[in-house]
């Protein structure tokens, strides 16, 4: 009885989580344009999707922004985490607390404040400001992920490396880096996905000249859900499934 209940409960949760996605995937192959009735299998929405140049351009832009912002955030974030761990400096405690503040602050607040910041600086919003905004909100996630991993290590390991003749550089290359690389990869993937599906911050910080996918979809959906959107969402779902799987394998490999 207890056992059955447990399975029922778990199934209910998974149905809630995955049923909508499954429906979306199924409808992306539905031949009917407007009705929710099943009218037969088709791939036409996929071909329509790939020939929709403005949508594809938004997609490329999104990938570009997600990739570059996550790389930059990962580099800066990793260095910051190392500094917090390795060195005792004035304001260290306050600075590391503010990392959490940025992480917790609502997107809308961050979006508006960044926009005001850019206006005050007199920078035209567009690809560059969008990139800066994405780096900003990805950064804390990298810092937190990497810091959590290093602070789990025996601090003496660094001393041992020095004791055995390693310089600061050698210690970093042979000891620190290999130990934190899974966290770096995790932080990077997290940043990549966060950047890829951000709507709110992007809404405020990009200009009309630079369209990205989530905003594009958002504006399309306001005119009603088109089957192309279903197809696109399906593609994106499997893309993220792929990244998650790959990251999982990479991290496991590194254990």
């Amino acid at each position, binding site marked *: 009885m207890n056992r059955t209940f447990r399975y029922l409960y778990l199934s209910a949760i998974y149905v809630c989580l995955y049923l909508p996605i499954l429906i979306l995937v199924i409808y992306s192959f539905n031949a009917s344009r407007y009705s929710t009735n099943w009218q037969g299998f088709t791939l036409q929405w996929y071909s329509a999707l790939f020939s929709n140049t403005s949508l594809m351009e938004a997609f490329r832009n999104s990938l570009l922004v997600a990739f570059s912002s996550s790389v930059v955030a990962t580099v800066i974030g990793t260095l910051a985490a190392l500094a917090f761990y390795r060195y005792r400096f004035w304001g260290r405690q306050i600075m590391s607390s503010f990392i959490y503040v940025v992480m917790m602050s609502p997107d809308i607040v961050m979006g508006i404040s960044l926009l005001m910041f850019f206006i005050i600086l007199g920078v035209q919003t567009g690809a560059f400001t969008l990139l800066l905004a994405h780096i900003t909100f990805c950064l804390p996630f990298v810092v937190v992920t990497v810091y959590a991993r290093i602070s789990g*290590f*025996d601090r*003496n*390991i660094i*001393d*041992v*490396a*020095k*004791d*055995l*003749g*390693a*310089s600061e550089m*050698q210690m970093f290359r*042979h*000891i620190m880096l*290999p*130990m934190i690389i899974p966290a770096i990869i995790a932080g990077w993937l997290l940043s990549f996905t966060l950047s890829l599906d951000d709507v709110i911050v992007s809404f405020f910080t990009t200009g009309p000249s630079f369209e990205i996918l989530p905003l594009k979809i958002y504006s399309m959906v306001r005119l009603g859900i088109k089957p192309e959107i279903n197809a696109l969402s399906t593609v994106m779902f499997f893309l993220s499934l792929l990244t998650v799987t790959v990251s999982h394998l990479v991290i496991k490999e*590194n254990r």
Partner: protein
Amino acid sequence: MEKVPIVRLRGVTKRFDDVVAVDTLDLDIYEGEFLTLLGPSGCGKTTVLRIIAGFETPDTGEIFMNGDRLTNIPPNKRNVNTVFQSYALFPHMNVFDNIAFGLKMKQCDKKSIQEEVRRAIDIVKLSGLEQRRPFQLSGGQQQRVAMARAIVNKPKVLLLDEPLSALDYRLRQEMQLELKRLHRQLGITFVFVTHDQVEAISMSDRIAVMNEGRIEQIGTPITIYEEPDNMFVARFVGEINVFDGRVKHVENGSAQVDIHGQRFKVQNKKNLFPGQDVTVLLRPEDIMVSPNGNGSGGEGPALSGSVDEVIYKGKTVDLIITLDQGETIFVTQFFNEDQENVVYSQGQRVDVDWLYGWEVVL
């Protein structure tokens, strides 16, 4: 000619905020010796090791190696290696790479690294485990890896910070012997840290007893155990019975001390004077018990009391005796072929005394 110490600390002080971890400490460590820093937790043992290794810079004072000033040389440039209490093995490397790390940092060629690592693995008896990762090893094996990783670099001085404290009793006994063997075999200077006095006494050439950042006494295990300089050392290195007395009379090299109305003859090494209050210390195994209970003892004076507790230990019998004056003393008796009646029973009246010269007078 005076021997030049391999490591010399002069007036070394180290403060952490308001804690004085090491307090104007002088210490000479000689080539090839097994020196133990013994003391309670928090007395500054680790800090002294970290200063020798170079992880901490003393606030004041200097440290020398073979006469050269070492104070501001970074740890990676010192010919000293450390085995940490937590072992701190590199989790992402296998046993071989852990041990090879020091040699790789020195840019040794591949072939000699192979040879040296193999030799170190043989010395610590880890053959066959080269490819294992640290998490696949038992505590004792991790300990051996940590040892091998240090000694493969042929340091002049090997620092060991409570290396055995994480091991269980049996393994600890085994590793104690192993460490002694390594010390003989390698011929390098060992500076060993422990808070376990039995371990210190059984392993060391010399022991430095530490307390609150200072060295209370330094000497051979026998000196430390049998001739403690002060109460702290006396109490820290083993059980001890303390009697308060007053000097009555001073002779050539000896003195008469009154303890509970009985006059005991004690050695006079410290210029005792009549009327001086002293403490007479006796190890449990130095006290003799005789079955009488009327204060007459054997030939000389004795203190009488009754047996409170008899604890049979196999090799020995421990007695807890309450003297008529109310003090409780602790006595260890060894079984002896000639003396059959060492078996006392609870409540029995007894006399206690000791042989002249076995006492310590402070």
